[in-house]
């Protein structure tokens, strides 16, 4: 088992070490993931329902939205 894991580790390690074009591509992928998760997600794409702590709160908020947007006179704070 240990040998198998070691072989897999070495397989990936050698693969990554021998890359040239692949290295550029990996840099692009990592840069892209960094921009996506640490800039876009963090600063520009917050979870809109995130300030409603529980699922019940989220359900209440969306329920009210669905009702209000069609029938404003039925607006109720559940």
């Amino acid at each position: 088992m240990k040998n198998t894991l070691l072989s897999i580790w070495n397989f990936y390690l050698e693969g990554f070490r021998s890359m040239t074009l692949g290295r550029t591509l990996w840099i692009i992928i990592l840069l892209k993931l960094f921009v996506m998760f640490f800039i876009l997600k963090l600063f520009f794409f917050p979870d809109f329902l995130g300030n409603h702590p529980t699922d019940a709160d989220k359900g209440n908020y969306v329920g009210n939205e669905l009702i209000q947007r069609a029938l404003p006179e039925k607006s109720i704070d559940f």
Partner: protein
Amino acid sequence: MIESIDTSLIDWSRAQFAMTAMYHWIFVPLTLGLAVVMGIMETLYYKTGKEFWKKTAMFWMKLFGINFAIGVATGLILEFEFGTNWSNYSWFVGDIFGAPLAIEGILAFFMEATFIAVMFFGWGKVSKRFHLASTWLTGLGATISAWWILVANAWMQHPVGMEFNPDTVRNEMVDFWAVATSPVAVNKFFHTVLSGWVLGAIFVVGISCWYLLKKRNHEFALASIKIGAIFGLVASLLSAWTGDGSGYQIAQTQPMKLAAVEGLYEGGTNVGLVGIGMLNPEKKTYDDGKDPFLFCIEIPSMLSFLAERDVDGYVPGIANIIEGGYEMKDGTKALSAAEKIERGKTAIGALAAYRAAKSAGHEEDAQVAYKVLQENIPYFGYGYIKDVNQLVPNVPLNFYAFRIMVILGGYFILFFIVVLFFIYKKDLSKMRWMHWIALLTIPLGYIAGQAGWVVAECGRQPWAIRDMLPTSVAISKLDVSSVQITFFIFLFLFTVMLIAGAGIMVKAIKKGPETGNNVTINH
């Protein structure tokens, strides 16, 4: 209320999502198509043992890898947008959307991450058989990923297998297999994947013809063209067949989309298919009395045949769908849009009454409201429609996008036939004009795919989820300016990534496959 949602917020949110999806779709079809091409090449290497096929396979793998690297994870941005811009939608769809996307994520990660590594790193380190299996499984992983994404999309076009829970305000999956194997999903999957195969084949033939233009890599180019053209012809024909299946499903489940695609305002029996036509730009609403076409040439009774498999089949037009009253297949009379709107309002009112009664602890009142809600839930989304004209998708956009897709689809069949004829009966390597045509066909492959998605998504409007949730209600209450800012950030990032990706791809193509036995995807 709906009026309080700035229409420019809806437009910007839609534009942002469309841009992200269209950008993502630049990479996905080529991944799907090249996956099969490199699988075929490596299979030939496995069968013949010829080093030539190994080098050929490795070259297309290299281009596959570049495309994969630039495109990978761009789909995740769509999921960010769901959570931020489309929060009502995200909550409302509940686990219906979450389950397929979760399966897709897990499969994509484990299958692609495992086998793509073996495919790129494993030459000479694993057996030929295992390497070949890894190459095919990389493609299979990408294809299965596409399946689950398209299942989720198909559910938005034709929601099945769920029940709306008024307590959680979410749809809950009650029949996984109804969702996963809905006829809309099955047709959408095959048509979409096959369109990716067509693009992959066009790409292989086009790039190979570039080598012929440059008078280099002659043997490689001709061998790739043969395989690409045969694969492309088969994929194009199957794509046309599954496109017919998709059209039939649209007729059965989204008659308004079909009517918009055809510019059909007044339906009937023996309805013709518009072969060539130009819409009248003066026509603004379904009942303004203006002729929908400046001119058109129809194939008699063809739309009835394609939509109902019967030349005498009844196909409703936009006016018929809005006014209702025609006989449905189950023998009932179609409701008018006005009646559906009333029932939608009743459903939303019942949801309000149910939640108020529950909140006040009036269980009996809640049960009465629940019953009313269940009776009217199929029309829930109509309760948000203020004007029946909102139910009509953008007719010119759908009409022309559909024709671009179909005409290009027909052109691709012809293109592959001509390429095969020249390569087997003439000397294609000397036909420079044909090389140019093949090269210029590459962008047409992308245009056809994008046009297909325009029809699929714009034809669904005004719905985010058909009949249940309009786009205008699916969006979050955000500042328009924040959506505009992210739109332009994406535009900038996508442009930079596209230029970087194209640059690397062009460099790899220029370098070519002639680097001898030392060539590997890693070098």
